[in-house]
């Protein structure tokens, strides 16, 4: 029996030592960036507009064609009407584009544009780039979505 307890004691000791080493390694490693900016509302690159991007039905589902809502306001808060919107994007870590070609299909008033045909086929970090042209000028914005 004594030898068994010795094994267990040795095992626990070894485990404690390893935990210590791992903790030291973890604490001294430089911490990676906290990941992409996941905000759903932001200023466009040149500050012309404030853009918000939300799934139309509230939830993001993998593998399903979904429509999202892109809402555009001027910096002063007025809805942006008649904007021409281009959509592109992809997965920066996989170096590939979107599996579909989403489009702005409808203007629903109050600066809200339906972006239909979005499909996230895998988990990970996705980016959607919007080119926006309206009376105030042209600007762009990038939204990150992580599944």
């Amino acid at each position, binding site marked *: 029996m004594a030898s*068994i307890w010795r*094994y*267990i004691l*040795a*095992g*626990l000791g*070894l*485990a404690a030592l*390893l*935990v210590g080493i*791992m903790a030291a390694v973890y604490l001294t490693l430089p911490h990676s960036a906290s990941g992409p900016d996941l905000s759903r509302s932001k200023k466009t690159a040149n500050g012309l507009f404030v853009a918000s991007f939300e799934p139309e039905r509230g939830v993001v589902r*993998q*593998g399903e*064609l979904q429509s999202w809502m892109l809402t555009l306001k001027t910096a002063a808060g007025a809805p942006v009407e008649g904007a021409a919107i281009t959509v592109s994007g992809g997965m920066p870590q*996989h*170096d*590939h*584009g*979107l*599996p*579909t*070609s*989403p*489009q702005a299909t409808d203007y629903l008033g109050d600066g809200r544009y339906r972006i*239909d*045909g979005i*499909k996230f*086929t*895998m*988990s*990970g970090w996705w980016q959607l780039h919007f080119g926006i042209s309206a009376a105030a000028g042209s600007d762009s914005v990038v939204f990150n979505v992580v599944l």
Partner: protein
Amino acid sequence: MRRLTSVPCLLALAALALLGGCGEPQFSDAEKKAIASLALNTLPSLKPDTTNQYADAPAAAALGSTLFFDVGMSRDGTVSCSTCHKIDRQFQDDLPQAVGVGHTNRRTMPLAGVARNPWFFWDGRRDSLWAQALTPLENPLEQAGNRAAFAHYIKKRFGERYERIFGSLPDLSTVPANASPLGTDAEKTAWSAMPAAQQDDVNRVYANIGKAIAAFERSIDLQQTRFDRFAIDLGTGAKPEGDAAFSPEEILGLKLFIGKANCVTCHNGPRFTDNGFHNTGVPPVEGLPPDRGRVDAVAQVDADPFNCLGKFRDGDESACRELRFMVKDGPQIMRAYKTPSLRGAATRPPYMHAGQFATLEEVVAHYSKAPPSVEGVSEVHPLDLSERERAALVAFLKTLSD
């Protein structure tokens, strides 16, 4: 860290079997979530196909099943859908490339769960199951028929059954025996001499043939496997018993599949496919015609009169979003092929769109090495898996067939 702490743990277990649970499969919460997402019990119920109003009509499925196995549905009366989609072989034929009236350039795809696909064929050149079913019927290397001949054949052999489902057959008395916009020169000439209304009549009968076959194919479903039993037990916290218990090698394979080997990136969800198209650097087969995959299929599905936006669709256009929002160009669709489901794959070699690999070992070795694509850019990157890791992945894949 878990692997390191398990060393003394295993020592203690071997001596005393004191630390119960240590020998159990150990998965992180993220791994458990990934495993649960692959299990068949997460498969949603099959959605209605609004483009085919007969999709769930039993009489249509019954006629479709008759047509599926009928060698009369070919030019020379020797080939049916079931010639390549063999019912006792997961509805595929075990050949590197399918052989109908002639030798094709693509591997026959199995049919379990096929009604859930947004795209059909390896390159997605059709956008519905019923439009897919029509394509081999007129392909000179497959069933090699023509739509005028099929309309006459349906009237002669199955007229009453057809009319009970689809309504009256049109007057075919002045329709040529053989005519099609895709056939031989003589068939094309005969087709273009037909009045537009008559072409429409024949196309309508032809579309209904596809809709009946699709109604039958919707019933071909996926079966639960050892993996699913394991995943369900893991999810509920029950100890997998009997064949639901995985060997250490299968567990390693599963961990690699959802982890380091990145398989789950594309082979995701309960069908183990993202339904997308990817260039994974699979080499072409010498002697076969040039094959660029998805990049050439886009124009074909766009031009197909039986596609979702065409006049033979039932229901409204809202069902056509896959076609409407498909990627039409760009480097990513060059030599891109559909991600196949891995369910049942272990028992149906050979693999890839033209049967390039004879064994799962060769498939896994290909992804481990990740050679560049002959055209376009492969999305996969070298994994440099060890021999033990490759064998473990194969062992795991076999659990999707048992």
